[in-house]
């Protein structure tokens, strides 16, 4: 990848997905748009990697998928956070913050 956009570190995609869904149910396309938007196009999320990740979250029971009507009146598959998903988001967020802090600290002082 020749551009300046960042590749996501391993495992962070799940966290981003959970965070994105915290605001409310979204379908796959909307999730990809939202992530691009929020991250101001500075993160490269492979469109294709989104769905396997969502399906893995579904298998783990962190999200639940339902068919619904999209904004342009088409059938779309909406993902919603489950109670376990919400709890997991908190845990993961906390972990991520701590990790970021530690990394930042090391970078400053070392």
């Amino acid at each position, binding site marked *: 990848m020749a551009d300046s956009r960042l590749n996501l570190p391993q495992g962070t995609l799940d966290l981003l997905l959970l965070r994105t869904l915290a605001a409310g149910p979204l379908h796959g396309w909307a999730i990809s748009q939202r992530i691009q938007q929020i991250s101001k196009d500075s993160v490269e999320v492979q*469109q294709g990697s989104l769905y396997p990740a969502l399906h893995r979250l579904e*298998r783990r029971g962190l999200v639940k998928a339902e068919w619904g009507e999209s904004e342009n009146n088409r059938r779309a*598959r909406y993902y919603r956070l489950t109670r376990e998903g919400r709890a997991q988001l908190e845990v993961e967020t906390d972990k991520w913050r701590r990790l970021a802090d530690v990394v930042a600290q090391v970078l400053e002082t070392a």
Partner: protein
Amino acid sequence: MFSSLKYRLGALLRRGRMEAELDEELRFHVERATEGHIRSGLPAEEARRRALLDFGLDQVKEECRDARGVRLIEEMAQDFAFGARLLRKNPGFTAAAALSLALGIGGNSAIFAVVDAFLFRASPLANAERLVTIATKSATVSDRAISYPNFVDWKRRNRAFEEMAAYRVTALILTDGAGAERVPAMQVSDGFFELAGMKAALGREFRPEEERPGAPPVAVISNELWQGRYAGDPGILGRTLNLSDAGMTTVIGVAPPGFRIGPRADVYIPLDRTGVFESRASADSLYGMARLKPGVTIGQARAQMDAIAAALAKQYPDANQGWRMNVTPFGRLRDDQTRAALLMVMGAVAFVLLIACVNVSNLLLARTAGRAHEAAIRKSLGATNGRLARQLLTESVLLSGLGGGAGLVIAYWALQGVLWLAGDLSSAPGGEPLGGVRIDLRVFLFTVALTLFAGLASGMTPAFRVSRRSLSARLGQGGAIGAGRREDRRWRDALVTLEMALALALLAGGGVMLRSLHRLMTADLGFDAGRLLTLSVSDATRRGSDESGQRLVEAIETTPGVEAAAGAFPLPFGHGWSGNSFYVEGSQAPQNGRLPEARVRYAGPHYARALGLRIEEGRWFTAAEAGQSAVINERMARAFWAGGSAVGRRFSLGGAKPPWITVVGVAANTRENGIDADLGPEIYMPTLFQYDIVVRTAGSPGAIAGAVRSRIRSLDKAQAVYDVQPMTDRISESLVPERFFGVIVGSLAAVALVMAAVGLYGVIAYSAARRTQEVGIRIALGAAPAGVAALMVKQGMKPVLAGIALGAAGALAATRLLASFLFDVRPNDPPTFAAVCLLLAGVALIACWLPARRATRISAVAALRWE
């Protein structure tokens, strides 16, 4: 955790719907992306192309399927479906392969059922895992009974057992209004019934005081005797039975139906520990039974008992020196010879399964070579080597599954055959295993495990090969002729070599065993066994006198159809044994004080005539010579009166002192002790009365048995007449073990031969079919068809001959283990080895030649059009 499981289960069960939903979801995404591109000004066609390219639809689908976490199972299901389709498409191949495996698996299961029942399975008694048998053994005897005084000391000194009892297998003469009958019986010590878990179905068990000498005699009878002889009369309790040895005995209990702990017994009486049984050196048929304390292992018990035995041996060297303890799980076979033979058969039948696996392996390998093109295409479409290998393993496991299913049926019938061959199991060493011999859950599980093993074993080589073939070589060259082909052939040849080696080893083993059996069955007995009837008599008092004996034998002799009769102990091919040391008058007394030993047979005046003994020198003795004269066998005459005649010379029994016994005749050597018993010095001593009688008949001995029996009954109603049997039956029974093992190993060898031949035929036929094109070209270019066929046969026979050589070398080493089972045949018997090598080579030659000839008969044109 649970939700994930539910998800996966849903993914498996609603696979079609999930695929459709995945399609729809991803299509929605691509459409939205396309719309985005259109909005930014791309033409519709280009927009869609870009969206698809960015997304990588197929890749994403695959990854989403992976994300479901059921990929492995899904693929296995696919493999199974694919494999099943393939097997259905080649019914001939499938049937041959499955039948091979079925024979291998079924044979193993049947033999395992027998071996398990005798050697491994716990008995069905309560607390069986803590029950042990206590016997003794020495350096040369693997299992011997115990003596009562030793038993008492062991019981007192050990800390390993919470309960210990002893039992003696015997027989009693039961006399009542219906006449005298000999019934199987058991003498049991205090605590025996408790150990065996027997609660009387009627009445009670023995009390400790009833075992004491002088206590009024009591008995517990079997349910079978109660029902059979006393019609289930509830008044049986308190009734007195006239039993030999015990006297008038009160019945105090009836055992539950089917109860036994070893050989069947109809009457149980308290243990007799008086008279000869007071001797520490006695070891008749008394065995100990004990229950380990919780937490004590059998190894600990053994160590403790050995320590006690060592102390007792020091204390009583005369009786106990050299005898160690033999503590084994209760009900387990203790006879080393039989155990070794059973394990040997287990090994032989394992060979058959190995041959079947190699067979199937090679057939699969040949087929995968033919399917190389398919494999190459699948690989280029993204299938991994592992996936291809797994596909092949799935196929072979499917095959072995079919084989295992059919194998269970074969096992059932094979077991019936084996049991038929074994005859009466109660005469097997240690008696019929408690719980019987049948296809039970353990055998079933063994079959399942074997099936899995066979599937994996036969699929291993093909799976390994298919994942090794290089992709380019396959696709580039039309799949028919490739670089991997030579290597394929090497593998194929290696498997053929292995198969032939295994088959030859089995053939050699079966060959020498059958030859030994043949020698046994045709051996010169030294007497005429045809038209000879044997029987035993006994009355409740067991006090036969010479006079009564003489009357009995005379009565038998005057029965129409009887030519001669004589008392004899031990009976030829009987269970008894009698021997003594002897001293030849005037010979040098041996320095170590040990006199030579001879078997001593007590025989009536007509014994030689009845048996048809050949008198080589002198004469047989008369009735008047008891205690003064004897006849000896040739072996003894040669060994101890070498160079001169033994007739007229004297010897003594039991020591170098009078009374002297004069040799009046020398009889030809016989095999009265059993065909394979070692020939040694034998002495015939005159006697008038014996419980056992041989009868020479004019016609068939079976036909006259009834007349003889009623003749004895009419003379003396108190005599129980039993074991009435033609001598040929006794001889036949004495050969049951040899016949059993010989026929089984021989049959296994035959199965191995057929399997090896069919396997070889299949492999050669397949490769011949695949070489049709090459054969066609050769013939078109002028090669003689016969020459081409010869070339193919030569190529086919090379690994066969290597296998035969390898197998012969292996068999030379392995058959040495058979030495102790063989009679008059060396384990490396050259004629047998030569014969089985030729047999296998001949059969292999035919198996090679048939398909080769067929291949060369196809016309060149047809061959060139082949592909």
